[in-house]
Structures are given as C-alpha cells and as structure tokens.
C-alpha cells in the first residue's frame, strides 16, 4: 500500500469544556477521495480545520507526506500551501478580481513574478471554466462561479491534498452541479481529496471511502456501496438513510 498523503493520529480538540474531537485516526492515500459525513456538530469542520492547523489541535499527530505538522519546527505556511482548502462561504477577497484572488498567494507565498502568476492563474481559472471572468470582482459572480474561483485559488498552488468543507451547501440547487463537475474533474486528474458534504449522489459515484463521524469520533468507514447498503453500526444506517432519501 502506498504511503498515505495525510495521516492523522489520535487527534484531540476541545473548545473550553466541550470536547469536539475525541482522538481521531484518519489516513488518506494518494489520489483517494474520502467523503466525510455526520450530523451537525459532530466535528467535521473542526477536523478539516485542524488538518492545516487553522484550528489548533490540543494533541495528536498530523503527517502530510510524512512531515509532522504538529512539530514546533514545522514551517506551517509552507505546509498550508500544499493543502488546498475550500469553504462553504467561498471566502473570496472582495476587493480583488477573480484573477487577483488566484494570483495573490502565487506571488506572495511562492514568490512568482506577476506575469508568471497571472499565466498560472488564468490557466487555473480556465480549468474551472471561468477564463472569461478573470477581471470580475466576486460581487459580480454567481455563488457557483465564486466557489469555482475559490477552487482555482486553491488548486493553482498545486496542493498535494484538497479539503472541501460543504462546498455546495451555500449554493442554489441549480448552481451545485457546476461546482461538483469541477470537483469530479479534479478527482479524474488524480487529486487527493477530503470532502465534507451532503451530496450523497456525488459520494456514491465519486468517493473511494465514506467516513461517518458522530460526537467527535469516527464511528464507521468503508466503500460507499457498502456504507449505503450494509453499514454495520445502527447510527450510521439511520443517518445515511435519513440524508440519502
């Protein structure tokens, strides 16, 4: 078995008295798409945000391609640019154009020249079908277009891992498809992905593994076909039936 891209061990996180992650173990192999589901408040977002230490875990280990992110000496900014993150609320920079959103980190983190950054940025926008929107500000784009710019912003840094936190939940139903299509094409290009989402059809056709979380712990995991039809744990079955309807 190939070495995992991401290897999370015994990860714990509390907010005050509330223990949100109770020792999570999760390993993601190269090119794998892991689909993370669970009831509201089960700690899915917190888990994703701990993976690049946007949220500071209390204890545990996070290895990205063998490099321990919890080490004091770890260059966190260097690690973060190799973990693309896509948010429910897009979080585009409203004062910059679509191209400016994509090129900022290329220039300031990777140190590319403006010309080179714009070349890469345009290619990334083209990849998400928005080559013609490069000069638009976020306010001039639909939610689906904004989310695709956000994906381009993350992908342009050539991450080894992409984290998606409910990327389509804030979108009108008719705009969801365009974002899922981009995610599908990323997967076909061999991107390693962890996706938190309620899009069960997408999970069925695109996921390699479905992970069910509840109360800050992973209850059960397996291939989507098995998870959807013959989950072992009654809680898993109840949850997947409920949202799979």
């Amino acid at each position, binding site marked *: 078995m190939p070495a995992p891209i991401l290897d999370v061990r015994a990860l714990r996180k509390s907010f005050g008295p509330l223990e949100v992650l109770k020792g999570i173990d999760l390993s993601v192999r190269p090119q794998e798409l892991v689909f993370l589901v669970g009831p509201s408040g089960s700690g899915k977002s917190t888990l994703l945000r701990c993976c690049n230490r946007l949220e500071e875990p209390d204890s545990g280990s996070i290895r990205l391609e063998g490099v321990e992110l919890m080490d004091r000496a770890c260059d966190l900014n260097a690690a*973060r*640019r190799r973990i693309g993150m896509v948010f429910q609320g897009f979080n585009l920079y409203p*004062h910059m154009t679509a191209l400016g959103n994509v090129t900022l980190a290329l220039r*300031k983190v990777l140190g590319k020249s403006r010309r080179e950054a714009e070349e890469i940025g345009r290619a990334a926008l083209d990849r998400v079908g928005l080559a013609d929107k490069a000069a638009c500000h976020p306010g001039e784009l639909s939610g689906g277009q904004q989310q695709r710019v956000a994906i381009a912003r993350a992908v342009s840094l050539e991450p080894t891992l992409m984290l998606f936190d409910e990327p389509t939940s804030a979108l009108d139903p008719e705009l969801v498809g365009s974002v899922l299509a981009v995610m599908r094409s990323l997967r076909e290009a061999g991107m390693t992905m962890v996706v938190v989402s309620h899009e069960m059809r997408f999970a069925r056709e695109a996921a390699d593994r479905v992970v069910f979380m509840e109360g800050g712990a992973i209850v059960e995991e397996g291939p989507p076909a098995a998870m959807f039809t013959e989950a072992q744990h009654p809680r898993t079955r109840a949850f997947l039936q409920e949202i799979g309807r």
Partner: protein
Amino acid sequence: MTDLDRFLATFLNPAVAGQYAGAIAAGVLVTIEVAVAVLVTGLALGLGLAVLRAYRIRPLNALIVIFVDVFRALPPLVVILLAYFGLPNVGVTLSAFAVLWLVLSLVLAAFAEEIVWAGILSVRKGQWDAARSTGLGFAQTLFYVVLPQAVRLAIPPLTNRAIATTKNTALGSVIGVGEIINQAQTAVAVTGNATPLLMGALAYIIVFVPVLILAGRIERRFAWRRA
C-alpha cells in the same frame, strides 16, 4: 441710517474688506498648512496604531486603548491650552503652530485608530481563514487582504472625522496661531466691524467645499460591489 444700512456697514463693509483681505488670505494659507500637516500625521499615526493593535500584544494594546480613549474624551481646546501653557512649566516649549499641529494630530489619530480598528474587526474571519490556508503569513494577510477591506469600510467615517478635526484648526486662534479666525478676530478688534469674520466664514467655505467634494469622490472611488 436705516437698519439695512447699519447691517451692511457692519457685516459687508467694502473698506474694511479691502483693508483686511490680505490678512485673511494669509490666514487661509496657515489654516491649509496646519490642516494638511494634521491630516498626514494624524491619519498615518491612527492607521499605524490600528495595525499594531491587530498583533494583539496585550500591554501594547492596553496603552493604545488608553491613548485612544483619553484623546477622544477630552475637548481638543483643553488639550491645546494644557499643552501650550502647561508644557513650558516642565521645560518643553513648543511654538503655537507646533502645539496646534501636535494636539490635532493626536486627536485625529485617536479617532482614526478606533475607526480603522472597527474596520479590521468587521472583516469576516473567513477572509483570514482563506488567506492563511494558502500559506500567507499573518502580516501578509493583514496587509494584502484585511487592511484594504478595513480601510474601505473606514473611509466614510474617516473623511467625516478628518474634516471635523481640520476645522478645529480654528482653535489655534486662542494660542495665537495666525490662521483664518485669528486674523479675523484681530481685524474685528481693531476696526470694531464684523466684516472680517464674515470673510473668515467665507474663506472656510472656499477651502472646505472642495475638500468635501474630494472626500465624496474618494468614498465613491473606494466603494466596491459587495458579494
């Protein structure tokens, strides 16, 4: 003499106007000098303090908050009088011009800091998340992502406050800075005629209406369509 004649002789006396036009014009120059100096140092200092505060270094933030609250609470006139008549007692003698510039700069800085800080706080946390997740550092995120948005939000209240503070240059008249009101008061004292004051008021309108128009332009220039 009719009432109207008396009114005109008091407020619109051509002889007095001609005699003191030069003095008022000199006052206009001084007012513009102080105002520009106060705008530059006050806004720069306010912005700088807001940026420092964003680093959230506790003792430093406490000092900033104290400074901001004191200078927003005190009437600028009191501070000007204290500085001009009090500081020489502790061995610091500043010119009237320097006192006016310094005090108004500090007052503007205090308000500007508070306005820009509120702007920084109102930038949604997701902006920090997104920027940091691409590997941008704290300072890079602050300067490239958060501050540009904070300053845009701050511009309308900032222009209002900047105009209000620069109008306070008139307080310089009490310590003898030769700005518009000081020149006008001197002329009124000599002639016993109110025309110079009316000329002073007119001078303010001539100086500040373009500033207001410019401020409106700046506000529109920095507005952007929100997502």
